[in-house]
């Protein structure tokens, strides 16, 4: 646990040592606000909730999270620091979890900085703050799942651009899996069981459920197990490359 904490500290420091952290946070805030106000018609809907804000999170994450995740391992491989890191007395699990938690914490910070949205909606009306809290938690977990996917894929290559494109694609597939458009295509020929499985794997299905205000255990378990599975794959990828 101590080692994980030390890795988290080092990683977090390095986010803020470069413009990366600031650029990410500014873009995240600007885009999430712009999407909510202009496309989500946050004001003209005249409803005191943050649905137009949270609705765009999956799409925002699709663009921004792979950008955070792509450097996690690919950059270490490119610069050779992975040889330094992995010859320190830490286990692969500690390295993987530490890097992930640092990135997740950082994303959480960006998300927390959207609090003016929450203040505005409370000033303008009388929203259900329970729903908003649930949505924030759901959004954070969804970001974690995106990150875990991105981290695992980043470990496969030393090229950050490739890591970005592949993670974005995989995340896109997981998000899209819940859209009627995709499900209808499968309904044409696939058995119901398969269609249900695909739908149940979708980020969108689970996230929409959470933003409706019902934090159901199964949605959180879904995102938590997505994170666990992808991080496990991440550990395997790092270890396999050691033996290759």
């Amino acid at each position, binding site marked *: 646990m101590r*080692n994980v904490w*030390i*890795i988290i*500290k*080092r990683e977090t*420091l*390095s986010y803020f*040592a*470069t413009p990366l952290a600031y650029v990410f946070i500014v873009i995240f805030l600007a885009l999430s606000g712009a999407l909510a106000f202009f496309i989500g018609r946050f004001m003209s809907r005249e409803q005191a909730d943050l649905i137009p804000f949270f609705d765009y999170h999956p799409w925002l994450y699709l663009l921004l999270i792979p950008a955070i995740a792509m450097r996690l391992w690919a950059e270490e491989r490119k*610069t*050779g*620091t992975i*040889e*330094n890191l*992995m*010859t*320190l*007395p*830490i*286990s692969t699990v500690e390295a993987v979890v530490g890097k992930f938690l640092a990135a997740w914490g950082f994303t959480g910070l960006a998300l927390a900085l959207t609090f003016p949205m929450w203040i505005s909606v409370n000033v303008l009306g009388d929203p259900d703050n329970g729903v908003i809290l649930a949505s924030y938690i759901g959004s954070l977990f969804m970001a974690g799942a995106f990150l875990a996917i991105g981290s695992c894929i980043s470990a496969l290559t030393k090229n950050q651009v490739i890591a970005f494109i592949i993670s974005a694609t995989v995340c896109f597939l997981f998000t899209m899996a819940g859209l009627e458009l995709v499900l209808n295509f499968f309904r044409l020929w696939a058995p119901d069981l398969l269609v249900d499985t695909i739908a149940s794997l979708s980020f969108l299905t689970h996230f929409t459920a959470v933003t409706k205000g019902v934090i159901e255990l199964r949605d959180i378990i879904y995102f938590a197990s997505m994170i666990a599975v992808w991080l496990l794959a991440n550990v395997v990828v790092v270890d396999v490359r*050691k*033996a*290759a």
Partner: protein
Amino acid sequence: MSTMIELDHLTKRFGALVAVDDISMSVSRGEVLGFLGPNGAGKSTTMKIVAGFLEPTSGIAKICGHDVTVDPVAVKRRIGYLPEGAPTYGDMTPISYLGFIAEIRGFDGAEKRRRVDMSVERLGLERVLRQPIETLSKGYKRRVGFAQAILHDPEVLIMDEPTDGLDPNQKRLVRSLIHEMAAEKAIVISTHILEEVDAVCNRVVMIAGGRLLADGTPASLRARAKDHNALLLRVVPDKVEAARVKISAIDGVSTVETVTRRDGAVILRVPAGTNAATVVAALGAENIAVEELMNEVGMLDDVFYDITAHAAHRENPYA
């Protein structure tokens, strides 16, 4: 002597390529082992396996009795490893980077500060402590990497080309550090700079094509050179031919070569095994004065070439 590093039939394959081919050897405390070989010989791969960065395809690598594949963390605790090119986190400053290394090595509070200070002082990093590492010169970057490797005072120190790309003064610093630490550690350095072997190593291992080809002290390897211990004589210029004939007549002397030195002087080279006194006496009898008499020291370069080039030859079926 206690054995610190033990390699037992270590082999590493990358697909069809055999990078390390059945290497067995051991290194004890107090030894500074120079790992010599041409580029691509398998030096780095072997060191990466010992440091726990790569896993061997077969064979065993043990550090202080711990198997690298079975208990990598125990091994990594006991090793200081400087990878080739000394990669460090460029966006960090030396002070925060060394702090991170100290923490991960298990040092806290005052002990952490003491360790960092010691490394900083040993490598002379005081002036650059708060500059991002990526803005430092190559020499300083290398020193930061070196500081990282010795911070926990490891029993085993593995360094992949520690002086590569450094200027002569920086090389001297690194070599004197190795000297200082040599007594209580087992140190392995890889290099293809042969003078370095003479400067710091008390043992040399040559590998090529992944195979161990020679193992001994620098002197014993040098003795393998063709002209090692040959007699070199300089006589007055107009007596060179006469002297050559005279020496050739001595019993047991097969050939006497004449070599023109860079400064223009003509030197006679008598193969090793001939008594210098006999030669001088024979020339004295003819009134040929010997102006200079030397023993040729075998060149490690030549030994290196003989050993590794032959290996390359064997590897290549079309050669």
